[in-house]
């Protein structure tokens, strides 16, 4: 009877879809000569009905057979550990391949300025994703205002450079420290709050930071932002065509100037920091702090009963996540040499959250893939780029319904008893 059920559910869903679509899709507001007018676009209604109806019908069919689950599990032989997916058995190779590809990228023949720059952008989002992953994925704290730390990092980096004349290598760690401190400042009063409330408060904080940046012109330059952000140097060698006092990179090495060098250099710096971040996160998951984060996410009350201080543990997650966000902000600032409050809206927080959610909360590789997808897909699918946020939002809902722990994660224990020798 599944066919009949599928048909019926499909038809019902199509009906609802049409009703919903009438005001928004079916009618369009236009500002005409005489004022506002409304035009009909009835084709869309048909489209909506078809897509939704078919989709729902298929869902009902697929739900009764287990095809999706089977596909996902992969054809596992006896060698597979219980519950492991295809992906999990081979991820080591994938990671190595990705690393090699990343290092080799700038030297590839097709790698022009644009490619490396885009890769840099992906890496910035990977850093942001890993940072938020600590807060949301590991510690289970829903932070909707992560963009605030991104902004604090970017602005402290920029202002330390322009106001105090510090160089790149001085500003970077300081920006991280500022962001982490901000994380502690923000976190301390609110980390006692329950999930939903924490989410809204952090959202509010993100907005407050943005509003302050826009309006406190003396401090932040207001909507005009900050220019002249410090650029990376290699042991004092600068990457500009002509330098004031110092030596230029190309002069030192006796090669022609190319704008590429700075871009490639920045790319490798970010790649290096990203790898360090990855190492840090993977290590800390095996340490008491990382485990405490995950335990807190699972059951805070049990944690308290075990003597774990929830506030301090949450604060550490917040602060470390903020620090990485601050680093990412610094890279963002130095990449374009200019920042303004426009880049630090709630949408950014939402995108970073989407990266963490889609990639699998707690999964490092997942974040990389999600960040790559989120940055690269719109580049390849230019015509569809305006559908980007709609796709993310819908994807977040779908992923939560289908696989609440994200596409790629099925947590593996960080410590095993098997294989350890028992004491004599």
């Amino acid at each position, binding site marked *: 009877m599944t066919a009949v059920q599928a048909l019926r559910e499909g038809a019902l869903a199509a009906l*609802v879809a049409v009703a919903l679509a009438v005001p928004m899709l079916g009618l369009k507001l236009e500002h005409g000569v005489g004022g506002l007018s409304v035009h009909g676009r009835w084709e869309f209604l048909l489209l909506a009905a078809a897509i939704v109806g078919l989709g729902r019908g298929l869902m009902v069919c697929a739900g009764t057979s287990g095809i999706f689950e089977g596909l996902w599990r992969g054809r596992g032989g006896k060698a597979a550990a219980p519950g492991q997916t295809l992906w999990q058995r081979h991820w080591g190779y994938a990671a190595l391949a990705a690393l090699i590809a990343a290092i080799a990228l700038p030297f590839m023949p097709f790698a022009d300025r644009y490619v490396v720059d885009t890769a840099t952008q992906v890496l910035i989002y990977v850093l942001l994703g890993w940072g938020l992953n600590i807060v949301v994925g590991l510690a289970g704290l829903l932070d909707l205002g992560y963009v605030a730390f991104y902004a604090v990092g970017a602005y402290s980096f920029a202002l330390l450079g322009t106001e105090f004349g510090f160089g790149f290598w001085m500003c970077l760690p300081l920006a991280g420290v500022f962001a982490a401190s901000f994380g502690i400042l923000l976190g301390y009063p609110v980390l006692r709050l329950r999930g939903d409330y924490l989410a809204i408060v952090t959202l509010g904080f993100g907005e*407050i930071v943005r509003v302050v940046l826009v309006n406190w012109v003396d401090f932040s330059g207001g909507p005009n932002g900050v220019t002249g952000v410090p650029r990376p140097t290699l042991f004092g060698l600068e990457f500009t065509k002509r330098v004031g006092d110092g030596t230029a990179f190309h002069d030192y090495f006796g090669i022609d100037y190319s704008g590429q060098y700075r871009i490639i250099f920045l790319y490798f710096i970010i790649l290096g920091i990203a790898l360090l971040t990855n190492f840090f996160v993977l290590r800390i998951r095996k340490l008491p702090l990382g485990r405490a984060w995950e335990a807190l996410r699972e059951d805070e009350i049990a944690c308290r009963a075990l003597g774990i201080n929830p506030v301090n543990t949450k604060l550490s997650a917040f602060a470390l996540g903020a620090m990485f966000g601050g680093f990412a902000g610094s890279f963002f600032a130095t990449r374009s040499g200019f920042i303004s409050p426009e880049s630090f809206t709630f949408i950014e927080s939402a995108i970073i959250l989407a990266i963490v959610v889609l990639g699998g909360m707690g999964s490092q590789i997942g974040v990389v893939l999600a960040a790559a997808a989120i940055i690269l897909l719109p580049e390849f699918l230019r015509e569809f780029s305006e559908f980007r946020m709609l796709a993310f939002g*819908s994807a977040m809902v779908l992923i939560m319904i289908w696989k609440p722990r994200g596409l790629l994660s099925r947590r593996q224990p960080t410590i095993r008893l098997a294989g350890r020798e028992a004491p004599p």
Partner: protein
Amino acid sequence: MAYFLQQLINGVTLGSIYGLIAIGYTMVYGIIGMINFAHGEIYMIGAFVAIISFTILGAAGITWVPLALLLVLVVTMLFTALYGWTVERVAYRPLRGSQRLAALISAIGMSLALQNYVLLSQGAGVKAISPIIEGRFDVYEADNFLVTLSYIQIFIVILTVVLMAAFASLISGTSLGRAQRACEQDRTMATLLGIDVDRTISLTFVMGAALAAVAGVMVTLYYGVIDFFMGFIAGLKAFTAAVLGGIGSLPGAMLGGMLLGMVEAFWSGYFTVEYKDVAAFGILVLVLIFRPSGLLGRPEIEKV
């Protein structure tokens, strides 16, 4: 004094709008224990439907204001209620047993999706409509300042009061209201007693959406200008209002809305306009830190 009075009038009007939206948040939070992040977008959709309906009515030649208002209210409430129902069915019901985080993320995803849905279907530009209810009373003049009370402001406040009264009696008097309160307190027990929990929850969402729709109509009439992003800020503030008044409490939502509206009006009037949103968020943070149960709410005791 005159200026003060004007801010007061503005504040009460604004507060009514916030209160109507806040009720949606508080009812949903009361019954399923989560924040409906998409509620702000429901309100925004209500405003869009309202503006579309007004435009159509205008083009169709129905210009007698009371009739147009009635029609628009009904139509907007219907469509918005349907959206509210769909959001619950699609994004929240499947996650009812899951971890908190999953439901929250789904809600945020829904909010994003709705915002962009409207952005894509109606365009990013602001939509403006010529005033429909015009006219006002000149109430009081002093210090070179004229205090006015516009018809639309009166309409908003009166409609809000009427709706509040209707809702209060609905909640306390009818079986639906009883079912709601039962579900709020103990969902499992309610199921065992034969209450259709799914239906009760759906109806809660629908009612909240309907009220948000009314707020959307009001805003369209009051400001005459809407855009796809208005739900975000309004939603945040309305949630602040709900928390301020005590989440889960209907009179609390209204009270919170009023207070917030007044704070915002006075802040803009006497300090700066740019930071008025910051003032609202500041209140949210302070309330959640110092008195999370709000003004009229009962402190929640953790069941360990």
